[in-house]
């Protein structure tokens, strides 16, 4: 076996194992950590495919940022795992049947002659000094500038929607605004009432 093939199978096995553990493990923190492992192995496979920029971005963005945030959320929120798993066994038969049928159908299509190595020949090897990152950078801001800018707007929409849905003024909190405290005037606190003097 060629060394590259060996590496591929190693990465793929660990990845499938880790992905399975994500859904079967009991502890949500462990699940998140297994997801990190899955991403890491996927990045390795991308490296094998000579997509080194995407591999590094996957590690930096997903493993470095998204999953760390995810871990924070999982640890901060008190998730009752048993309640989440309530329907697991009752849904399992249906889910398993659907999964097996889908797998069988896709194997039928994908294992035929249509997706073999003959139908999808390997692309020619890149020249020496070819930089994946540079090529991506070159098309990202020229040829693909339209979807790129639109994608930034999509992220903005997500941000606006998230803020609009979660930001609310809490009533009944004891929060004090220092600016308001300093700006207070005498008239706000004391009201002078003139009353007729009372005679005995």
């Amino acid at each position, binding site marked *: 076996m060629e060394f590259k093939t060996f590496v591929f199978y190693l990465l793929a096995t660990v990845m499938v194992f880790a992905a399975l553990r994500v859904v079967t493990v009991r502890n949500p923190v462990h699940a998140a950590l297994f997801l990190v492992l899955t991403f890491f192995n996927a990045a390795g496979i991308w490296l094998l495919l000579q997509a080194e920029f995407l591999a590094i971005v996957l590690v930096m963005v997903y493993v470095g940022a998204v999953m760390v945030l995810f871990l924070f959320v999982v640890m901060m929120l008190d998730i009752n795992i048993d309640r989440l798993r309530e329907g697991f066994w009752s849904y399992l038969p249906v889910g398993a049947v659907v999964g097996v049928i889908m797998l069988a159908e896709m194997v039928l299509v994908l294992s035929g002659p*249509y997706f073999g190595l003959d139908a999808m020949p390997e692309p020619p090897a890149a020249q020496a000094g070819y930089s994946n990152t540079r090529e991506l950078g070159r098309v990202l801001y020229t040829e693909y500038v339209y979807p790129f800018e639109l*994608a930034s707007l*999509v992220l903005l929409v997500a941000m606006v929607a998230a803020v609009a849905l979660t930001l609310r003024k809490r009533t009944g909190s004891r929060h004090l605004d220092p600016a308001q405290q300093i700006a207070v005037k005498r008239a706000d606190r004391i009201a002078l009432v003139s009353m007729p003097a009372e005679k005995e």
Partner: protein
Amino acid sequence: MNFVVPDFAPAVTELFVAGMSLVILLLTVFMRESARNIGYVLTQLTLIVAALLTIFTMDGQVRVTLSDMYVDDLMGDVLKILICFSVITALIYGRGYAADRGFDRPEYHLLALFSTLGMMVMVTANHFLSLYIGLEMLSLSLYGLVAFDRDSARSTEAAMKYFILGALASGLLLYGMSMVYGATGNLSLSGVAQAIYNQAAVYDGVSSKTVLMFGLVFIVAGLAFKLGVVPFHMWVPDVYHGAPTSVTLMIGTAPKLAAFAMAMRLLVGGLFDLAEHWQTMLMLMAVGSLVLGNIAAIAQTNLKRMLAYSGISHMGFLLLGLLSGVVEGDRFNALNAYTSSMFYAIAYVVMSLASFGIIILLSRSGFEAENIDDLKGLNKRSSWFAAMMMIIMFSMAGIPFFIGFFAKLSVLQSLVAADMVWLAVLAVMMSLVGAFYYLRVVKVMYFDEPVDTAPIHAASDIRVLLSANCLAIAFLGLLPQQLIDLCQLALVASFQG
């Protein structure tokens, strides 16, 4: 590295809307609470100017720009204008409703504007990437809008369902696109069409055709979800019912035009040489939608759910138009078929706007007029709006001399021309079943005693616009030919051959 700066002129409408949405976002962030009207006014102004810009730059030419990702053609322009007007109307109807329930914050209007931008991008897309990103922008804004009434458990549940199913559908669509890319090596829709054509001509292309078909199935599934047809309709009743009515109004109208454009771009623009395959898929979905939509609607007591099921059946009708284009490899009927389908989409949007408008008109703060029983005796409370609702219901049922009749008629004509008489018969039978629940609403309005006798509170702008909307249904029913001609002209100019 020779890069030519693309011609931005054809995309001026999208650029304007995108720029204005950012301006509005920044302005409203720094505004006081009291000046929240600014967001609404600016959103409406932006939409009006966008529609005008499109009208003034409209011509019959097809221009492709931004490295093949954007196409400016007559079909896109017509649909963009209609989308703008539909969103403007929806925002006017929904404004009082949103204000009564305290969610007319600037973000609400802003998300509506972003969803319009998403629809425009979809309508003018000539590339899988821009199509998908436009779709995501539309969907994300709508998920946010559905959940906007965040203290209502029902609306949160609806948003959650919509979000999860929508994400699944996007996944299906993307998977299909990646398969088509694998088979053709092209992401641009015209490129895909060319590659499929070449492959069919050069060799018999068995291998890549299977891959193409594999992708096609997933693309059609994703498309069906966005249109809301059986078997991908599960979200429609729950989302229509759960979302605040002003948001239901937005989901049930303009996005249908965008979904129609997406179907045209993907199936007719990109995968036309596979027509015999996708037509069979659409046929199954259309039959399912017509049967399920009409029969399930009978059992509904909630007006919004009833309209949701009726929407499913109407989308089935729209598919009937799309699937009658190519008969055994012959394209003689294609123009007729797609024209009828486009006309149907426009007619449905006009009717749908008016029907949800009536629900909003009858609702007031703390009261949702969403049950059919709430319409009881409407004639005694306001004979004018009872008559308006009657026009809408007659038109949706397909009773002659309203726009809905001519929409159904043109689809049926195209079916008969394509020798699919049994489908036409089925469609007519199901329309008859549908007539039952539309006419029940009319019966309830005119022959039952009112339960709710409160007078109708509504701002005068809603009253005038809603009346105009309903009268348009009647008027376009008398003179449908101009609109049909416009659709035909747009399609001829956009897809020659």
